[in-house]
Each structure stands twice: as C-alpha cells, then as structure tokens.
C-alpha cells in the first residue's frame, strides 16, 4: 500500500550483476537484499527472472554457482510470487545445470548439478503445497489443515522429508567439495547459509506437524515409518550443524 523509493528496472539489473560477479567472494548481502526488496516493492518477480536470463553467466562456473545462491536467497525471502515465477522458469533453471563446463574443476560441475536439482525439488514442492512460504516459517493454519485431513498431512510430511533428504545430499556434496580443495572459496561456504536456514525451517515444521498428527490419529503404527525417517534426519542434521560450526571458526581464523 505505502511503498517508497521507486526502484527501477535498471536497479535490479545492476544489483544482479553485482551479486553474481566472477570473483570468488560471497555474493554481497546488500545486492541480494536489493533484489529481495525489489520483488516486494513490485509484488512481482517477472523483472527478476527476466534480468536473470540476460546475465552472461554461462561461461563461468563460479558465476553460475553464485547465481544459484542468489536465486535460492530470493526464493526464500522474496515475495511469494517468486516461487510461482520460479516454477515457470524451471526449464531454464534446468538448463543451467547442463551448461556448467568442465574447464575449471570437476567438483564444480557436481556442485552446480546438485544445487539445480535441489532448487527444482523445492520449486516443485512449493507448487504442490501452496501453504508454505519460501523459508518454511511456522504458520499455524498449515498444520491445522493437515491435522484435519490426515491423508493429506501424511503426504505433505512425506514430501517435506524427501525435500530434507535432498537438502542433506546437497550439503554433503558441498562439504566434500570443501574438504577436497585446498583453497576454500568464500562463496562455496556462503552457500551453506541459506541451506542452514532452510533445513532448520523444515525441521521445525516437521516437529510441529508430527506432533499434531500423533495427537489426532489413534494408531501409532501408521506414523512409525515417518518417525523413523525423522529420527534419522535429526541425527544427520545435528552432524551437519556441527560441521558448519567448525567451519565458522576457520572463517574467523583467516
């Protein structure tokens, strides 16, 4: 209703260009934030996707990877239409995974493929379950709705668990990349930030949904497989966070 500061088309173009540079630094928060605020100001993500496609990133693996981080961030924090716009551009996103050239290191190709795959999964999930926002911030009514319809609840928990699994996969690939290269690039580490935020969001959602489901259904046997999967994920998540905290110390030591 009340929005100030007319950010024009040109602004998002420059912000995107600055966020997705070829150097190995992390995408600067201020440029990413400019993109996010832009989508809220205009309540649409069309310009964002449009400018993204015009970026000359295909020739450089670093740039592709950094662009993927930016996309992930905007999907998480941007206006809800970003998720819809992303779903429409899923084919283009897929093409990014094929574009990655093997010229630098083999590890890069795998990183990009895995990231693209995860983003596709995320977009598909949001397409199927409209109640969630990009960050999976806890919203009461979603868990209420799933409780009122146990079948649907079961299904969405299943899908959430699968999403968490592929997130876990991605995290593993990134970590193995970090361990096997001597020079740790800042931008690879920075890709962990949205992953941590998202995995925690999903984790919290799963807890509240499972609790609600337990309360509503009579038999525990039905939910037992869900519980087992959740337990396994809980341990992996715990290890993931432990790994991350060790990296943070390395970061500050530099």
């Amino acid at each position, binding site marked *: 209703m009340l929005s*100030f*500061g007319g950010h024009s088309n040109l602004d998002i173009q420059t912000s995107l260009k600055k966020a997705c540079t070829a150097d190995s630094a992390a995408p600067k928060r201020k440029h990413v934030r400019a993109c996010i*605020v832009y989508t*809220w100001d205009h309540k649409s993500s069309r310009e964002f996707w449009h400018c993204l496609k015009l970026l000359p990133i295909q020739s450089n693996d670093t740039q592709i990877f950094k662009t993927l981080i930016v996309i992930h961030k905007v999907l998480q924090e941007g206006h809800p239409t970003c998720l819809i716009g992303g779903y429409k551009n899923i084919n283009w996103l897929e093409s990014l995974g094929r574009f990655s050239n093997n010229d630098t290191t083999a590890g890069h190709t795998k990183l990009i493929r895995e990231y693209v795959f995860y983003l596709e999964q995320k977009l598909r999930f949001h397409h199927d379950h409209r109640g969630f926002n990009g960050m999976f911030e806890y919203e009461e009514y979603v868990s209420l709705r799933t409780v009122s319809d146990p079948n649907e609840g079961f299904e969405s928990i299943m899908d959430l668990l699968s999403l968490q699994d592929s997130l876990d996969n991605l995290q593993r690939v990134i970590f193995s990349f970090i361990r096997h290269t001597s020079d740790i690039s800042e931008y690879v580490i920075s890709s962990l930030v949205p992953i941590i935020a998202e995995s925690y969001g999903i984790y919290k959602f799963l807890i509240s949904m499972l609790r609600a489901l337990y309360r509503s259904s009579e038999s525990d046997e039905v939910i037992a497989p869900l519980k087992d999967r959740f337990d396994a994920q809980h341990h992996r998540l715990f290890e993931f966070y432990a790994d991350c905290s060790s990296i943070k110390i390395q970061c500050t030591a530099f």
Partner: protein
Amino acid sequence: MSTTKSVIRTIKNVANGYSDVQVMVRKATSNDPTGPTTAQMADVANHTYENGEFLEVMDIIDRRLNDKGKNWRHIAKSLTLLDYLVRYGSEDVVAWAKNNIYIIKTLREFQANDVLNTDQGAIIRVKAKELTALLRDDERLKQERELARQKMTDRRTRRKN
C-alpha cells in the same frame, strides 16, 4: 570536523527541500555516535499522528533503512526510532511497518565492517530480529502499546502535579 559536517547537513536539508519533521527525523538518525534521545523520538512520535507528516516521516525512515553499509549508524538508529514509533506512535506506523516488514526482515542478515574491521552489523541484526518478532506477535504488540500509553499519561499527570 563535526561542525563542517553539521553545516553541510543543514545545507542539504534546505537544498533537498525537506520539511521540518523530516529534518527532525534526519537529525535523530544521523551519523553522530550518540543515539537518538528519548525527547527526539517522542517528538517524532507526536508528529506521526498528523496525516501528511506521517508519510514524510516514514519516507525518511524508509530511505535510511535502505542506506549503504557504510552508514550502518543510519540503519541502527532508524531501527531504534521505528521500534519507538511502533510503541508510541500512531496506529498507522504499525500498519506501515507490517506492510513493509520485508525491509526489516531482510536486515536480519545485515553485514558491515568498519575501518578497523570490527563487525558493526551485529547491533542491526539483533534490532531487526527483535522488531520483526514484535511485529509478528499481535498480542504482545497490543500489550506494549497499552504499556506505552500508560507511561505517557503517568508522565503527564506527574508534570501537572
């Protein structure tokens, strides 16, 4: 140094045609190391009850919140001011803040290092986090505003006696 800066600021205020309230907000959220005083914030809060002036106040705050990392003081002080306005200002401020919550929300990951490479973004991240939590919790917000109103009436009656 600081005098030349303040002179330049007065010139800028005139040149850009800011109104009296906007000058007030700019002064409260300036780059001086001392924070906005309660009196300054209370002044601004009173002005948010005027319809035209409300928009002028929010315009400056919006600009300050989207400022560069170098001017992290602008952002930190604007968050302090906005937090005060949400409690003491008019109901419109709450509506504005809720509509534009993404501006505050995205500041939760703000990063800025000064010349000595010390992290100055931490204060902004904490403030943004607290403010979003307050704006999301309608019940608490109502209580806080009630409390603020009580404080104001207390102060007024004390002054009368």
